[in-house]
């Protein structure tokens, strides 16, 4: 069989995760835009309405998964872009852990917000 082009390189677990999250985000981001701009409208936003949506366990779970996958996909994308630009050595390590810390803060803050809406005491 003739080999075909792919950006895959062996050992690329992050490569695979970037693509799996991409496929997931394609669907969920489209749903997110559609629900919050076309079904509901920007000028109708209220704590009450956000809360009503987030109290639904399926919606809550989907939004948490959305937050985690979007954070991973975005931050890993930034890291890849910087590595492509020639980031190496100590700088690369420092930036990598800074991005990990920023991701952690983002996910914690996102979960706290979702919990506040869902009426979960932990926020």
């Amino acid at each position, binding site marked *: 069989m003739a080999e075909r*082009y*792919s*950006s895959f390189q062996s050992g690329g677990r992050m490569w695979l995760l970037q693509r799996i999250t991409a496929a997931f985000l394609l669907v969920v981001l489209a749903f997110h835009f559609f629900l919050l*701009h076309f079904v509901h409208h*920007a000028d109708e936003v209220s*704590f009450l309405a956000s809360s009503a949506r987030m109290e639904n366990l399926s919606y809550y779970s989907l939004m948490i998964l959305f937050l985690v996958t979007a954070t991973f996909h*975005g931050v890993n994308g930034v890291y890849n872009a910087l590595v492509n630009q020639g980031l190496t050595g100590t700088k690369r390590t420092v930036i990598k852990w800074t991005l990990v810390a920023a991701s952690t803060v*983002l996910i914690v803050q996102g979960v706290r*917000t979702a919990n506040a*809406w869902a009426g979960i005491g932990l926020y």
Partner: protein
Amino acid sequence: MSQSYNRGLIEDFSRWREFEAGMWAWIFHKFTGWVLIGYLFTHIAVLSTGIPAAGASEAAIMAGEDVYTQTIVSLESLLLVRLLEVGLLAVAVFHMLNGTRLLLVDLGVGLESQNKSFYASLILTGAITVASVPTFIAGAF
């Protein structure tokens, strides 16, 4: 053996006049990616006003006088914010369509027509964005 195509150094932006469709797709994908991750951090920061709002009285929440509702309502009343949202939609739609193109190429579909699918991504992004303007602007005036 798989062949690699020597595209030259794409990071050398001074060569932009020589760039082909695929290189522009690469640049646009990076640019829209940076915008989207920047927006994600901003988005969560704004939505975080939901945390103090949860402590407001039931009467304040029912009346929409909590800090979250007030923050979002005042932001959405600004035409600039609505226009930025249209820009965000354009950026997101392009990243999604071009991302689909990249996933398909990695699955072995459409490498030969990758320049055409890039142009299709651009045209479709423009069409979806223009079609969404009335919905995104509604209630801003």
